[in-house]
């Protein structure tokens, strides 16, 4: 039995690949679903966050979140994306984002 460099490299590759394919999807089972890289297709129906734009007078206007995204998928962290990008996309003075777990945050636009 001669463990040459090629055989060792193959064994290492196999071990890393198997570890990745077992550990990542297993870990994903312990988080909220669906998670990326976990083969969690159709495991739950995605809940979208709610968002509002706020003008200079402080008036809140609800926005259709779906119009601001190219694709609606359960794995996307839409709340974080809205907090980071809704100001630029909407031109509002401030935005309010309420994630599906009920946490609401107001972001003042610069």
């Amino acid at each position, binding site marked *: 039995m001669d463990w040459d460099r090629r055989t060792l490299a193959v064994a290492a590759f*196999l071990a890393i690949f198997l570890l990745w394919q077992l550990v990542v999807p297993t870990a*994903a089972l312990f988080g909220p679903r669906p998670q990326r890289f976990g083969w*969690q297709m*159709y495991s*739950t129906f995605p809940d979208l966050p709610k968002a509002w734009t706020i003008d200079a007078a402080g008036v809140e206007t609800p926005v259709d979140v779906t119009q*601001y995204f*190219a694709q609606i998928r359960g794995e*996307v962290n839409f709340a974080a994306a809205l907090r980071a990008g809704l100001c630029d*996309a909407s031109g509002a003075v401030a935005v309010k984002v309420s994630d599906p777990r009920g946490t609401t945050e107001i972001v003042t636009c610069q």
Partner: protein
Amino acid sequence: MTERVYRFIGSHGPSRPLALARIGIAVAALMELPNTAKVLMQLDDPGIIRAPFLPWTPAVNDGLAWVLIGLWGAGAVGVLLGWRTRRVAAALCVTLATVVLLDQQLYSNHLYLLVLLSGILIVADSGAALSLDSRRSGERGEVSRWPIWLLQFQVSAAYLFAAFAKVNPDFLSGSTVASSLRRVGPLAVPDGWRSMEPMLILAVLAVCAEASIGIALWSRRWRSTAFVVALGLHVSLAAWFAPTYPLVIFAVVMLPPLILFLDAAPGRVVVWDDGCGFCATWVKWFNRLDWLHALRFVSRSELPTSGLPVSEDAAARALQIVWSDGVHGGFAAVTRILEVLPVSFLWAPLLRLPPIAWVGEIGYRWVALRRKCELPVMASGPVVSHSH
């Protein structure tokens, strides 16, 4: 253990199933391209919010999108044709991985699966057969076994984890299934049918189907059942769930690699009546479609010298197949032939089930009694026997 790993790494498997899996992966990549290209182009729109994985990920603009689309298309065509297969598989894998990591909105499970499968094609010798590479340097019958096993493992793991992930109250209540069922078109499911009990049953069936596929693929006894269940699952998903196109692509990603589980080792001998033009036509087609070279064809006139346990009388009455589990004739022989052809292995096991098998046998006898046998076809020698 160490010795087993060593021997496994040094072992070999057939090249043709791997080549067919490669072609399937390339077709799936080409089918997914317009789907992802649409999202890539939309990400250049200032009204669309970016959702990068990492803050430093470059923004997608038209130029970057077109470069990625070009590399993706060229890579997939290269893999499909098997031209410098490992290098183009590497280019395709890197391109797909870049797309997946550019923005969260570009992620899909089948795109991620394509990244992994094309990644395995870099280390697999998938261009050893049915490729431009093999036309140039000659086809090799065997390649390293471990990348084939990795592809098998990957597909099996995807089914198993998909089943595990669905074991949650949300899915098992049937609400996800009810929301995902098609609402428009001829296969639309009426709202009245989306009540709790049928949806709950469908949800449990989906979990059982995915889990059983993931496990049964590794069992010689249950593998053919897994093929049928997998085909049924993907056809049902594409037919009754929305959106259709991504589900069709998902089927195209998942089903071709199943051929790697097919036991198509040479050894099956088909005995056919070379005194009959009708039989010769059928056998000619079986031979053409035997891309895995699993069948050897022996004509009735060659029987006396073949040493096969089939009488000339039996061969004159019906097609015969000789294999390790015995001799089968008529419709049973046709079924066993179809079970090793790449175009039919997923559904052919259904033909063994009663009453399909009974009706098939009656139909076979009916046709056999009325067949027209024209000897000149035999003289032209339509069937070339494979030698292994």
